[in-house]
C-alpha cells in the first residue's frame, strides 16, 4: 500500500537511495544523513501507516524491538552515553512525514538536542478531570497477545468507535500532514 507521494515509501522501495542499517520483511532502518547526531536512525514499517494508531499491534512490537536492537548497537559500537527513542505523532507533535517512524538517536553530553520539558503546574481539579477522561478511554486497553492470534476478533474493545470511522481518521491525519501552513 505504498503511496506515490510518500518519501518514506520511496525509500522503502529503493526509489530514493538510503543508508540501510537493518532490514527484514516488514521493517527497515536507515541512517539519517542530516541526523541530530551521527548515527541517528529511522526505524519504519515498510507498509504505509501515517500515524501510530494505524499500525497493527503485531508490527508495533516488531518495530520497537528493532529500535531497541539499534539502540543497543549504538551503545556498543558508537560508544554513545545514551539513546533517545522519539516518536512524533501528528503535526503539533512535530511529525513531518506522513509515514510512522521511530527515531533512534545516539546521545552525548551537551549535544545540543533538547527533548526535555518544563513541567506544567495543574490544580487538583484539572488533574482529576484529566484522570477521569483518560481512565474512561483507557479502560478497554488490553488483549494485545490475543490480538496477534485472532486479529479481527479483538479489534473493537480497543476503541469504542465503530470501525467505519477509521477511514475518516486516516483522512484527517493525512490531510493534517499535508496541510499547508
Amino acid at each position, binding site marked *: 500500500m505504498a503511496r506515490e*507521494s510518500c518519501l518514506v515509501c520511496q525509500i522503502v522501495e529503493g526509489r530514493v537511495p538510503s543508508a540501510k542499517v537493518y532490514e527484514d520483511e516488514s521493517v527497515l532502518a536507515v541512517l539519517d544523513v542530516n541526523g541530530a547526531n*551521527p548515527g541517528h536512525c529511522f526505524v519504519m514499517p515498510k507498509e504505509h501507516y501515517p500515524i501510530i494508531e494505524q499500525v497493527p499491534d503485531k508490527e508495533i512490537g516488531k518495530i*520497537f524491538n528493532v529500535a531497541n536492537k539499534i539502540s*543497543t548497537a549504538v551503545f556498543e559500537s558508537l560508544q554513545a552515553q545514551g539513546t533517545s527513542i522519539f516518536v512524533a505523532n501528528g503535526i*503539533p507533535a512535530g511529525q513531518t512525514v506522513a509515514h510512522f517512524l521511530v527515531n533512534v538517536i545516539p546521545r552525548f553530553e551537551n549535544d545540543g538536542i533538547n*527533548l526535555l520539558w518544563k513541567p506544567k503546574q495543574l490544580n487538583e481539579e484539572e488533574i482529576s478531570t484529566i484522570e477521569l477522561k483518560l481512565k474512561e478511554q483507557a479502560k478497554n486497553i488490553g488483549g494485545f497477545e490475543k490480538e496477534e492470534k485472532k486479529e479481527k476478533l479483538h479489534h473493537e474493545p480497543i*476503541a469504542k468507535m465503530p470501525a467505519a470511522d477509521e477511514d475518516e481518521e486516516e483522512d484527517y491525519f493525512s490531510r493534517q500532514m499535508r496541510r499547508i501552513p
Partner: protein
Amino acid sequence: MPEQMNEEQLKALQEKIKQMSPEELKEFQKKQCIFCQIIAGKVQSKKIFEDNIAIGILDINPANPGHILLLPKEHYTIMPQLPEDVLSHLFMAAKALSNSMLRSLEVQGTNIIVANGVAAGQRAQHFMIHVIPRKENDGISFELPQKSIQMDELEKIGKKLVENLGSKVEDKEMPKPFVMPKKIVEAQFKEKPKEKEAKKAPIKKEKKSIEKIPKSSKENIDLDDIAKMLGVK
C-alpha cells in the same frame, strides 16, 4: 527512601554497591526505586492503565496535562535490558494510550519518548515510556538539530551498526544523501519539502476548511468531530 547519610555511611554504601552481583544490584535498586513503590501501591499515584505487565500513571511534573508515564512492573533501568515480549507489550500499550489521548483530551498529536541514560535526560532508575499529548502552541519545543555529517563518517557508522546488528543489508556504496523534511519540533513549520507534492495532490478544497478549525474547541472532543470540522463527510 533512605534518610540523609553522613560521608562515612555514604562511602560504605558505595563500597557495598561495588561489591554487589548484578542480581543483588537489581534487588538493591528495586528497594530504592520510587516507581517500584508506586507499582507495589506503597506510594500513591493516579493510575490510568494497569495490567499484569505494565502500569500507566499521570506524571506529577507533566510536559502537558495528561502526560503519562508507562512503566513495566518489573524493575529494569534501561531499554536494552527489556525482554522482547515485555517491550512489545509496553509499546502496544503506549500506542493504545496515545489513542486514548487523541480521543479524550482535546489534542491533535502525541509524542512517545524514551530516555536511555543520563545524557539522554533519564532521571529515574526505572525504565519508562513517556506518552505526551500535544497541541499547537503548547509551549513545548523539542529540538532535534540537523547536523551535516561527513559521508565517510556516516559510512563508518553504518558499517559498525550493520556489523553489530548482523544485518543482511547489501553491501553497496554509500548512496547520495536524501534529506528528510526538517525536524524542528514546534508547532510552526516554516520549511516543508513535501509541500510541493502536497500542492499537486487533490486536497485544495480542504485547505479552506482546515483553516476554519476553531482554536478553542469544546471539551471531550472526538476525532470524529474534528474530522467533521474539516469538512469530511
